[in-house]
């Protein structure tokens, strides 16, 4: 049942996160920056410690028992991502540093092979820099063109415009599932359908989505889906690219080194099969173990219920913030995740962030790695409060109290 958490459930969840039990400037810490990175439950911290304390060795090559255990712990991360994305085959899951690396892999491997002069890459106006810059680099190298589908004044994608912009030269449509700056949830199925109809490939940046929205890559109909461990209550430095097996098989390796080869001689090397073909070097082994545990943790609570909890907090926060004079919300799309961006009349986001910090409230102030989004809304920066599964209405109340202090300082 997709209902928000009860008070009892929420206090049990909060107790899973040791970091929350501390003070900031003498006030209880109110962490409202989960869109930047989520905190880690005890089980994830323990899984990482246990890997190093009991099961550590290099992976995929040891013949001894310890190496087998390390490999199993790391590979559990791959299998967990497969489950989370409802992907058919764990070989389609490449374990990487995170979403940024996943997108760069596609740009540099698939992109260099498939994008040529005059071709087009279509993105949306709400992308994170990590889903803009790799394509700009590819376009500059290949003589291709970056095309941007617009968003409306609420921060929602204008789907008709996207459809109009997809053409015979469009090789790839790369879109974010959930916007980190605006909270907008994109209609990824429709986007993929439009792209496929035009013969284009589809990449979805799922960094912000997977911890609150059930994802089924086949149901979406995308070709690539990228995610980060640190945004789903797992470690930083580990993430994944899911790609359709036939595409991955046809793509050239991205980085050369150990792990990714089948045979090496000075004359010629041959490549390992997927996923190892794209995993040169010793990976973040403990990261894989932590990722597996984080996904287990998410599943034990239920991604749908986390989404419902965030939706309820979003509605509560939106109403409370709208009551503050001089506050303008930035990002008011009809379908949103637990992200509230806003500006205060005549008060810079950084000053808001500093004052809130002294009240114990941690929010993000800045451009959120989405400068084009800031330009679209005519602001230099916004304040962003974002929710995770551990946030409560009391956290929102603390934010509102803090904002009243901000207004008082500047009055």
């Amino acid at each position, binding site marked *: 049942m997709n209902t928000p958490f009860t008070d009892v459930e929420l206090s049990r969840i909060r107790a899973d996160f040791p970091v929350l039990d501390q003070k900031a400037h003498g006030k209880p810490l109110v962490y409202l920056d989960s869109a930047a990175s989520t905190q880690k439950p005890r089980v994830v911290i323990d899984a990482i410690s246990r890997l190093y304390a009991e099961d550590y060795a290099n992976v995929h090559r040891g013949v001894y028992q310890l190496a087998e255990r390390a490999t199993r712990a790391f590979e559990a991360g791959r299998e967990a991502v497969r489950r989370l994305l409802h992907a058919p085959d764990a070989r389609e899951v490449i374990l990487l540093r995170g979403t940024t690396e996943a997108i760069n892999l596609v740009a540099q491997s698939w992109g260099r092979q498939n994008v040529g002069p005059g071709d087009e890459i279509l993105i949306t106006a709400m992308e994170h820099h990590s889903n803009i810059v790799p394509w700009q680099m590819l376009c500059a190298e290949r003589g291709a063109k970056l095309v941007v589908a617009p968003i409306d004044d609420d921060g929602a994608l204008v789907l008709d415009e996207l459809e109009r912009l997809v053409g015979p030269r469009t090789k790839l449509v790369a879109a974010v599932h959930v916007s980190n700056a605006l909270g907008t949830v994109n209609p990824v199925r429709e986007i993929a359908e439009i792209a496929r109809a035009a013969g284009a490939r589809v990449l979805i940046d799922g960094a912000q989505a997977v911890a609150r929205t059930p994802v089924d890559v086949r149901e979406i109909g995308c070709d690539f889906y990228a995610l980060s461990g640190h945004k789903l209550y797992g470690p930083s430095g580990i993430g994944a690219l899911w790609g359709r097996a036939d595409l991955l098989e046809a793509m050239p390796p991205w980085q050369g080194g150990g792990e990714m080869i089948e045979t090496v001689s000075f004359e010629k090397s041959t490549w390992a099969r997927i996923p190892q073909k794209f995993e040169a070097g010793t990976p973040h082994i403990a990261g894989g173990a932590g990722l597996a545990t984080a996904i287990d943790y998410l599943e034990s609570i239920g991604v749908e219920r986390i989404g419902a909890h965030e939706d309820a907090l979003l509605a509560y926060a939106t109403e409370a913030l709208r009551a503050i004079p001089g506050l303008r919300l930035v990002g008011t799309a009809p379908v949103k995740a637990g992200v509230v961006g806003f500006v205060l009349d005549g008060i*810079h986001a*950084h*000053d808001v962030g500093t004052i809130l910090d002294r009240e114990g409230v941690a929010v993000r102030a800045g451009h959120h790695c989405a400068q084009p989004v800031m330009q679209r809304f005519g602001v*230099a*920066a916004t304040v962003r409060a974002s929710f995770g599964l551990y946030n409560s209405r009391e956290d929102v109340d603390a934010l509102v109290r803090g904002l009243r202090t901000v207004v008082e300082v500047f009055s």
Partner: protein
Amino acid sequence: MSTELRELYQTVILDHYKKPRNYGRPAGADRQAEGVNPLCGDHVHVYARLEDDRVAEVGFEGSGCAISTAAASLMTQAVKGHTTGEVDALFERYHELVTGRGDVDPESLGKLAVLAGVREFPARVKCATLAWHALHAALEGAAEPVSTE
């Protein structure tokens, strides 16, 4: 509200934020530089006219937070009429003031002393020094925007 916050956002600073002095490009400005903070997207343009190595006119434009705007405004007042060497020396002592390093006497910095509260907020030192870096670049005749990073 904490005393650190009160000290940071004191009346003089808020006054310079809301009514920045020497805002705009002064007539005859022959030096300029841009300062950007890539972390927050803040930017400031600093303009100056030198006469015999002395800052005859100085002004700034840009958008930023209360600290960076007030710091730019106060800076323009503090450097006017001084030689480039004096400006550099002042920047050095000002830097010590806002970072809390060194043992600079705030009194010796005149009105700039109101920015001493920044030392309690390490994340905001870049705000307080952005315009100064740009001024330094302008006086040096740098062609590229200066960055806090």
